[in-house]
């Protein structure tokens, strides 16, 4: 069967039997996604709390340590995530209007942005730090005369823990977006309305939200 790219071919807006109507069905999906996002807020919240407690204690050291991070690289990644968030919002918009090709283009652009985010993070942040031994663990090496090694380890634990957890979410996002694009392109019956795009979009906006707070806290720390 030839794959059509110009419009959604599968039956759209199917109401499943356990729901009263389409409105209730859609609300249920979105509510379930938000319940998941609440657990995600709790998950990341504890990382922010650990950061707050230790920065409160070691602010002068943390300020000196944060100077290793490049605000330009962080800013570029912030903008890339912002663009990807916008394009997911557009994908939902086009899916609601049942325009198949724009949905696929928007999701594809989002995936590109997510990949770019990871590549920039690896090449300009993680790998240089790893080579210098600036990571928490047995290979940690530190030769500063100003900052005690244990406080530096604490900083790198927080940095790699928080941004690493965020990067893991980006990786999961890329996998899920790829699957969603494949299913939409194939007119798979599981995509019976725009809700799969909407729910994945909620997830992706949340990933963007986390970065909105991470960026000023880690890259633009005041003295």
């Amino acid at each position, binding site marked *: 069967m030839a794959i059509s790219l110009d419009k959604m071919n599968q039956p759209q807006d199917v109401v499943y039997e356990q729901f009263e109507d389409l409105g209730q069905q859609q609300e249920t999906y979105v509510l379930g996604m938000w319940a998941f996002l609440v657990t995600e807020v709790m998950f990341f919240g504890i990382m922010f709390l650990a950061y707050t407690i230790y920065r409160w204690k070691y602010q002068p050291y943390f300020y000196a340590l944060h100077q290793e991070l490049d605000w330009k690289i962080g800013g570029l990644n912030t903008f890339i995530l912002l663009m990807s968030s916008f394009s997911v919002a557009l994908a939902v*918009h086009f899916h609601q209007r049942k325009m198949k090709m724009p949905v696929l283009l928007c999701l594809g652009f989002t995936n590109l942005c997510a990949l770019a985010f990871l590549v920039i993070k690896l090449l300009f942040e993680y790998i240089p730090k790893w080579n210098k031994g600036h990571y928490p663990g047995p290979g940690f090496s530190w030769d500063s005369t100003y900052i005690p090694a244990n406080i530096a380890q604490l900083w790198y634990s927080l940095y790699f823990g928080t941004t690493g957890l965020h990067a893991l979410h980006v990786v999961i996002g890329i996998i899920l977006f790829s699957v969603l694009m494949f299913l939409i392109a194939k007119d798979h019956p599981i995509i019976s309305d725009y809700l799969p795009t909407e729910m994945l979009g909620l997830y992706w906006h949340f990933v963007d939200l986390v970065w909105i707070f991470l960026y000023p806290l880690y890259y633009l720390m*005041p003295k």
Partner: protein
Amino acid sequence: MSEHVHAHEHSHHITPFGTLMATFIKLAILMAATIAWAFFAPQILGNTPISSVINNLVALGIACVKAWLVIQIFMGVKFQSNVVKTYAILGFVWMTLMFTMFADYGTRQWEPVQGWTPGDTQQALPRADQPYEEAIPPRSKINIPEGKH
């Protein structure tokens, strides 16, 4: 089931393209504002402990406005029912409670913990003979030259 198909085709809200575009532009402007603030704030506020607090509050305030825009428009909570709105604020209410409770940490002396002193150069080793309060100098006594770490 078939009679339900297309019964409520237009029950959902479609956020207009213009609204999404405007939100994106607002977010980009606020991002630029965050960066600009980080560089100009020290010149405006000077370099006192309270200026650091104000600097942080403004930076996080901008981040909150950005988060509000993303949640309301991009995530579409503005156009959802009240039960979805309730769930959307639930996590942030919990965050507020958690931070309020842990503000306790800022008002107390930390308990001395063996092996967690700045004297250790490579790893944490027990140093029972060194009092913790002496090991961590007060904030005003820590002087790290600019750009050195």
